[in-house]
């Protein structure tokens, strides 16, 4: 097997189609992401962002299309190959999905032991290091019920990072959080991006993601409608679908930073 070259995309999707209840939730979506890049999915609810992310690691098997990891097509029919693939693709969910019966430490450790076959000692050491990285070393013994939303999401991030993923998929990681807790999660995500983690993130935090995204992908009705750098889509004098969507949410939330509902970089 040849080593993937520097230019081979880490993750690539070709022509993904997903039909749910007669709706084409994904209508032939393709994307590819290179090492260390950050792509941000935006668009209205029901656009297919979440479905796309879940198809990318086969949590929802796509009806057709291909997914390639470092240039090699993933055969999702093979259970072994699927599990190996998923280990390399970290996933962060909107509502955290921590395991309620396990402490923060055990949440991070369980897959290291069960999936990677690490010893309890090694897995514990690694789990503590990851909890430290997200600023939660002192919460290792807490159960999810005794963590705030922001802390839960950071544990979920530590859990994904512990598997040494090649790419992370983040599905609206701050949408279920109280406003005052969003910052702590965004700062962890910013650290990851600056550390060179490859990420595909669906979010409504436009101004935050504009500061770290290499590319915005605007989705609507299951299709990619626009894609380009934040500057291309939100820069001055640009009239894009992304721009008008962003203005709408900034009117509501003050997000976006522009004056009078404007959404400019």
């Amino acid at each position, binding site marked *: 097997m040849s080593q993937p070259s520097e230019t081979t995309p880490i993750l690539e999707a070709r022509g993904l189609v997903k039909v749910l209840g007669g709706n084409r939730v994904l209508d032939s979506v393709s994307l590819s992401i290179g090492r260390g890049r950050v792509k941000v999915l935006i668009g209205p609810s029901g656009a297919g962002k979440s479905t796309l992310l879940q198809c990318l*690691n086969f*949590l929802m098997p796509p009806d057709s299309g291909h997914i390639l990891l470092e240039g090699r097509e993933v055969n999702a029919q093979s259970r072994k190959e699927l599990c190996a693939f998923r280990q390399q693709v970290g*996933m962060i969910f909107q509502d955290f999905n921590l395991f309620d*019966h396990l402490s923060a430490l055990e949440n991070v450790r369980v897959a290291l032991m069960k999936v990677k076959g690490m010893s309890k000692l090694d897995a514990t050491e690694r789990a503590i290091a990851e909890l430290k990285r997200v600023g939660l070393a002192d919460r290792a013994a807490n*159960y999810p*019920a005794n963590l705030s939303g922001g802390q839960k999401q950071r544990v979920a991030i530590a859990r994904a990072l512990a598997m040494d993923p090649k790419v992370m998929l983040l599905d609206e990681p701050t949408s279920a959080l109280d406003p005052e807790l969003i910052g702590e999660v965004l700062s962890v995500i910013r650290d990851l991006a600056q550390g060179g983690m490859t990420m595909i993130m669906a979010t409504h935090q436009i101004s935050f993601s504009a500061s770290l995204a290499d590319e915005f992908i605007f989705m609507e009705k299951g299709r990619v409608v626009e894609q380009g750098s934040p500057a291309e889509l939100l820069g001055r004098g640009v009239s894009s679908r992304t721009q008008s969507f962003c203005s709408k949410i900034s009117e509501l939330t003050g997000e976006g930073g522009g004056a009078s509902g404007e959404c400019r970089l």
Partner: protein
Amino acid sequence: MDFSVAFNAAREALPYMLGGVGWTVGLIVGAMLLGLCMGVPLAVVQVYGPKPARRAVGLYVWLFRGIPILVQLYIFYFGILSWLSNLPGLSGLGLDSPFIAAVLVLGLTSSAYQSQIFRGAIQSLPAGQLKAARALGMTDAQAIFTIVLPQALRLSIPAWSNEYSILLKDSALAFTIGVVEIMARMRAIASTTHEPVSMTFLAGIIFFVLTWVGVKTLALLENKVRIAGYTRQGAA
């Protein structure tokens, strides 16, 4: 009715009656364990299995919930097991014993009820946890064993303790095929002492105490395995 006569009769009968407790406890422990060992896999298959397997489990549950225990005891003891025990290879295994028949009937019936307890508990868990486990690279079997069942079994304890108390009283039917448990002894001693009322009371009290001990023990277990800070919606 002379209470002191009745009381003395009951007191004298107590050792004999308590001799039946061992049989009753044996029936219950055997049946609950058989029900547990079958009920958990049945529930897992009914939630996650392929459609034909889910159907088969559904049929099994209907069958055992639909036929009275008394009828099943007759079918198993006088029918299936007595036929099996006459087969050449199976003759020495004691399959024709009434105790085996009673444990089987109570256990199979309980497995049908228990499977529905566990199924409900599995389905009450947030589906996202299974997704998260898969996303980490766990196989479905790993996810079910390490994530789903530890939580589902905890949630099942209150309903399981209910099942225990029902099964305990169903076990009294085992006297009909000749298991010498509490009920059988009560009938025997009532007919020799001519004190049916006090003996019936005594049996009732013994069943009550057994129920109380079991339910209390399970409540202690429930408390012991409780997850810190974890409450179901609507609780606390």
